């Protein structure tokens, strides 16, 4: 799966529209993921996962920052997220299936806040981008 020029432009466009809301959307994505797919909570036994949790907000910020970083270096996502990829492979070892779940929730958040931005073509590009990010983060698992 390869990101075309149009895909890259679409993704950059989405993140431009999201702008300063990225951190907020990161937190909302996580909250929705924990609510929709309770099994994802197993990776955060040390977190307070209640609505409004400062830990979830903080972690959402990190997740969003990584997505923004990937979008800003969309020609070399593997390079941009290399350290994160190492971290996930060696320490975090989040099962690969969960990246799809996070991706689905991020798409839901974008759909909720920017429905007019998420045209079918942009939806396709963003879905591909999120898959690519997931692939990079799990690339060194074995």
């Amino acid at each position, binding site marked *: 799966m390869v990101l075309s020029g149009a895909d890259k432009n679409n993704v950059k466009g989405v993140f431009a529209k999201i702008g300063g809301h990225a951190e907020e959307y990161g937190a909302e994505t996580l909250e*929705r993921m924990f609510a*929709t797919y309770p099994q994802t909570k197993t990776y955060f036994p040390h977190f307070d996962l209640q609505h409004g949790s400062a830990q979830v907000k903080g972690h959402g910020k990190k997740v969003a920052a990584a997505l923004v970083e990937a979008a800003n270096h969309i020609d070399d996502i593997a390079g941009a997220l290399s350290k994160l990829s190492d971290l996930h492979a060696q320490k975090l070892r989040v099962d690969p299936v969960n990246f799809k779940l996070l991706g689905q929730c991020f*798409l839901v958040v974008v759909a*909720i806040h920017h429905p007019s931005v998420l045209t*079918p073509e942009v939806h*396709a590009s963003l879905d591909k981008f999120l898959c690519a990010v997931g692939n990079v983060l799990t690339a060194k698992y074995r």
Partner: protein
Amino acid sequence: MVHWTAEEKQLITSLWGKVNVEECGAEALARLLIVYPWTQRFFSSFGNLSSPTAIIGNPKVRAHGRKVLTSFGEAVKNLDNIKATYAKLSELHCEKLHVDPENFRLLGDILIIVLASHFARDFTPACQFAWQKLVGVVAHALARKYH
């Protein structure tokens, strides 16, 4: 049998009451064919699927999307008996249509995004949970008679 809490049932049925089945169905199927283009393999008789614009405007896509979502409504009306509701459709998708059940999961995920874009903040996390559960149950029921 699936267990639904009273709240989950309420979230599902109240949202469904506001859904424009024709519009949402058409949009969901079109997005499936655009976002996951390999799903077009089942629709070679639908004519022009050569671009997102062509897909969105394709009358067969719209009609079939409406048909699919109308059928989905049967699940909403029979939440306590989804398995039986889709038994015949499951056989059809296996024996005649030869559809990989993974496609039901893909369409379910797309439907969630369509609902989110239409209902915005009303599509709360609790609502998303109930609906994601429902699309999973429907996908499972449609795959149940596969052999």
